[in-house]
């Protein structure tokens, strides 16, 4: 059996990249993405295990956890942290929506039944937010309201709170809350119409 080694993204690397980015090096984001992506997926698995185990829904944002694990916090400015959060939330969105899409495909293909020595994961189809549809709606929303759609990404996918979002987007908290309120109305209407 092969082991499952921790991704070799040392805090120093990530910290260095964030520093470069803060000084205006946009390429840095490209380097950062795969590292953060791996870490988030790993954390996601841990998170789920934990969630299943103690079954308290911790408000811990995975994004925070990734940040604390990957970055030498003392060495990074607030801009660095904002960059990191922004990227991480986007990646969380990608991970979750990709999984939702894969899950839907599996269901259509009837694969689920073959899988089910443990009855796969017992996923119920109804109820929880259809992330694929939401992702689509969010893309349309972003055309008219780019900043507001980022608020949704940071909050819903990234799990960040208003203060953090305000920092990432460089706006006031009040603006964040208004954006969020409006985005919910808009997306809710969009999904009601298509669903």
């Amino acid at each position, binding site marked *: *059996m092969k082991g499952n080694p921790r991704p070799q993204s040392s805090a120093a690397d990530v910290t260095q990249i964030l520093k470069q980015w803060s000084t205006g090096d946009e390429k840095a984001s490209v380097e950062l993405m795969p590292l953060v992506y791996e870490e988030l997926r790993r954390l996601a698995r841990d998170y789920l295990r934990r969630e299943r185990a103690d*079954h308290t829904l911790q408000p811990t944002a995975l994004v925070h956890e990734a940040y604390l694990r990957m970055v030498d916090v003392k060495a990074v400015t607030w801009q660095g942290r904002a960059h990191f959060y922004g990227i991480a939330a986007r990646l*969380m969105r990608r991970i979750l929506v990709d*999984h939702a899409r*894969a899950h839907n495909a599996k269901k259509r293909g009837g694969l689920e039944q073959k899988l089910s020595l443990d009855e*796969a994961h*017992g996923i119920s189809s109804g109820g*929880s937010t259809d992330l694929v549809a*939401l992702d689509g709606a969010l893309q349309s929303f972003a055309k008219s309201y780019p900043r507001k759609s980022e608020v949704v990404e940071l909050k819903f996918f990234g799990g960040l709170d208003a203060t953090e979002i305000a920092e990432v987007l460089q706006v006031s908290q009040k603006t964040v809350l208004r954006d969020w309120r409006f985005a919910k109305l808009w997306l*809710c209407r969009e999904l009601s119409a298509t669903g």
Partner: protein
Amino acid sequence: MTPAERAERVAELVDAALERGPHEWTAYLEEACRDDPPLMAEVKSLLGYQDKAAHFIEAPAYQTNPELLLLTDEPNELRPGEFLRGYKILSLLGEGGMGEVYLAEDAELGRKVAIKLVKRGFGRENLLRQFRQEERILGALNHPNIARLYGGAVSSEGTPYFLMEYVEGDPLASYCELHQSTLIERLQLFRKICSAVSYAHQHLVIHRDLKPGNIRVTPEGEPKLLDFGIAKLLDESSELPDQTVTLAGVMTPEYASPEQVRGERMTTASDVYSLGVVLYQLLTGEKPYRLTSRRPDEIARAITEHAPVRPSAVLSENPNSKVQIRKSIRGDLDNIVMLAMRKEPERRYASVAQFSEDIRRHLDGLPVIARKDTWGYRSSKFVRRNRLAVGAAALILLTLVGGIIATSRQARIARLERAKAERRFNDVRKLANSYLFELHDAIENLPGSTSARALLVKRALEYLQSLTVDMQDDPSLQREVIMAYLKVGNVQGNPRNANLGDSAGALQSYEKARAIAENLAAVSADPLLRRPLALIYEKMADVKAERKQVDEAVQDARKSLTIFRELAAVNPTDTAAQLSVAISQLKVGDILGNPNFVNAGDQSGAMESYQVTRAILENLHTADASNSRVRRFLGMIHERLGTMSELRNDSAGALAEYQKSAEMRVPLAAEYPNDSTVLRDAAIAYEKIGNALAGQGDLEAALENRSKSLAIFRSLLQADPKNVEAQESLAISHIHLADLLGGPEPPNLDRTAQALENYREAVLILEGIASGTSAIQDELAEARGKIARLAGR
């Protein structure tokens, strides 16, 4: 306006409208969008979603859809062709919550096995040790419908795995689907499953994780149960507290029983429940609870709280279901499923065999056990019906309440269905109070019920406490908690009632009650809220005196008195409040210097206190001569005063007080011939008069009074022949009478024969209860000794 500007304007207007109340929207928007009706329509349309959007995407996606986090494309541990110990991996069979399951071949035996890796989960390290313990039991499960467990081991990388019989075939649900199984075929298949579970139960193995995915059907149509005993191993090897483990172990919580969800002990009844869910799905093709999310707290709430839709009703909703099937399910099969799936384990089928038998009866057209359940079933009724039940019944009740609590908490955590949660909250509170006051009081005088009472009171307290967490500001609830602590303390160690002898524990409980009561009294001007505080100090004084902490006991008794006085001052015409002051004052006197109690040796203080008591009581008696409580305490205070006179060697004064005491007590005894306390009081009054008369040398008059006393003690015993205390009292009364008639020591009436008769009577009674207290043994020895001395003359 450019489209971007227009979008911005829409957002601005929505914001502005939301800053106002909905009733102002129309006016505001008509003004703001005067020349642009489409703009207004757009804004209004968005505002129309305000309610719907309230809970929309509020929680982060990975919380509402946690299953998506599991669908990572993590590389598989093993690939076809690789070897794990002596097993060649053939293919991946599936992926479960704990890890992958592989099909492998035993290179030596050439037999196919399933290998289940346990990659995730807590306490993996303990798993194997646990397995070794259970191996004999699990390995011995040899039933055609149970997949064999061959063994367990750890890979060279440290991953535990199980080797199991490989079952070729389809999961139960897909098998029935593929073969278009008829209702009867499904039921017969299900009965085979039951026989396997029943077999395991006879071998003391509970499955704990029964679900359609764990049941495969071979091409020959034989069902096979997988993973027997695995769930238990996973649970028990974990080091997490029980409750957390259970949900962790259950990867598909829809099949978990309510007790499992609550983290309570799982029994064969839990398997009955899960089989009920399996049958439900066999009949309807659907899961019993319509879950709107995968949030564990919501699932738990559904399982512990919601009644599943009846199977026939599910089918009526489905346009594709055949009317024929629906009809055959309605009635018996509905009832059978619902009986198996009842929330309370003890109300389900008693065994899987009984469950299966009921299905057979249905198939044979015979009447079934299962009847329609009334969901209005209330546990409080159960309490009422079984008020006198102690022990086992009480424990069942405790379980019931625990359940309601768990669910009401869940409901409140979810902040949904608030009204319902509150109703349940009140149910729990009612039940806790029923424990405290109805059940507890009903069994209070039952011999040997002390520990049952302790348990009842303790549980009731726990329930009340769990309620107070969310209800900090509800004074009436706090009052109940205070009273609960008081009762706990009394049962633990208050010498004034049957207790467990734990006086330190009693003081701790009283102290807790005091802390809450002080807070309560501090935040509220309502003087009545101070009453519990007075009661607490009184009880503390009892226990501290018993512990020989006399000075502290006096202080507490005085604190209690002060509060009772304050309360009485608020309402001077309230007889009950005045009487409370009198009783409290009497207790202060007892503790200060009454030789019959643990006391501080302050006799003049005691006298003073008793005089005050008497004055209050006489005032009350003058105001209302018919008040029997006042009369009773007047009888008591005169007895106390008589004792103090004796202490001063004032035998004439003592006699006068005892006679006053009898004047109160004897008529009361005539009025309340069934009240044992009142009768006992009268008997004691005669006894005391007899003592005083004997002290003055009037032996004949003393004899008359002691005879009256004995007659009352005898009638008390006749009313309650098994009462040990009544037996002891009568025996002592015989001894005292005998002493006077012709005991070995003067003064006496020299009637030796009668004296011997009474001593023998006492011996006879005491021998019947000699296994009791050392006091009884002392009395027995005394009577025997006196008989011997008389005989030896």
